[in-house]
């Protein structure tokens, strides 16, 4: 059985407002990585790494807020 908390979590994920963080994170990752690399391949690899770290960081903050709410 899926608990009420999980349903609420899923509902929050579906909240349209949260998806606005995605373009912000993509642009931030690309620009940050581009200031640390010069070659396109390195920029993209670096951006992917920063993007994953950003998603993990945001998920942690989300989880923390979920716990203290």
């Amino acid at each position, binding site marked *: 059985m899926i608990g009420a908390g999980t349903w609420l979590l899923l509902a929050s994920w579906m909240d349209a*407002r949260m998806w*606005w963080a995605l373009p*912000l994170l993509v642009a931030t990752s690309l620009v940050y990585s581009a200031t*640390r690399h*010069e070659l396109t391949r390195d920029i993209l690899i670096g951006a992917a790494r920063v993007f994953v770290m950003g998603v993990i960081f945001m998920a942690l903050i989300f989880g923390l807020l979920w716990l203290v709410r």
Partner: protein
Amino acid sequence: MVQIEIDLEDGHPLHIDLRNPYRAALFAWLWPGAGHFYQGRFTKGFLFMICVLSLFFIGLAIGRGRVVYASTARNDFRWQYFLQAGAGLPAAPALIQSIKTRGGSDPFFVLCERYPPNYGGDSGNWDVQPFHRLPAEARLPSHVRTLKDGFMAPPAGEIDPDNNDVLGMWHSEMRHWFDIGTVFTVVAGILNILAVYDAFNGPLIVTPAMRRQMAERRAARKRKKGES
């Protein structure tokens, strides 16, 4: 002409021609990516231009053209504009609007009008009114002037935290979109400042030599700790 050489991981040197770094930095600030185009670094130029400008204009559209404005008025010091101005020329109309509206003049590119407090002399109707289709001023007595929302212009009239004002109306009409739009445009400005630095100084690549130096420093610190 300034040229830099960076040793890559695979041992090959990478030459970057920064041309005139001061001029490149100025171009990069004025229009995101322009400094890199000037240096012939087209891929990065396109990347900076697309990322920074799309964030800026998406933010501006979300905020209905009102989230980027310059104001040092009492109760409305718009500190976010200092960061938004990092995006260069796209943020410049806000400065022009700020100068234009100083002293109570109407802004350029009026988006809507609002009836001011007590516009009909009715003391029971103090609040600033929601927006009205143009031209609203023509329907009022000749001595009454409406409060006009302008594209990238500061909120018209007095900003009073204890009463309803135009800034309050913006927040009430746009709800969280005002904040999301502000965040997008502020982040665009900050990212362009990073791009300006890249145009001026080249990328902050951590080279194998720098990595070796860092490892040596770490080892030296550990040795010192072990001795003490």
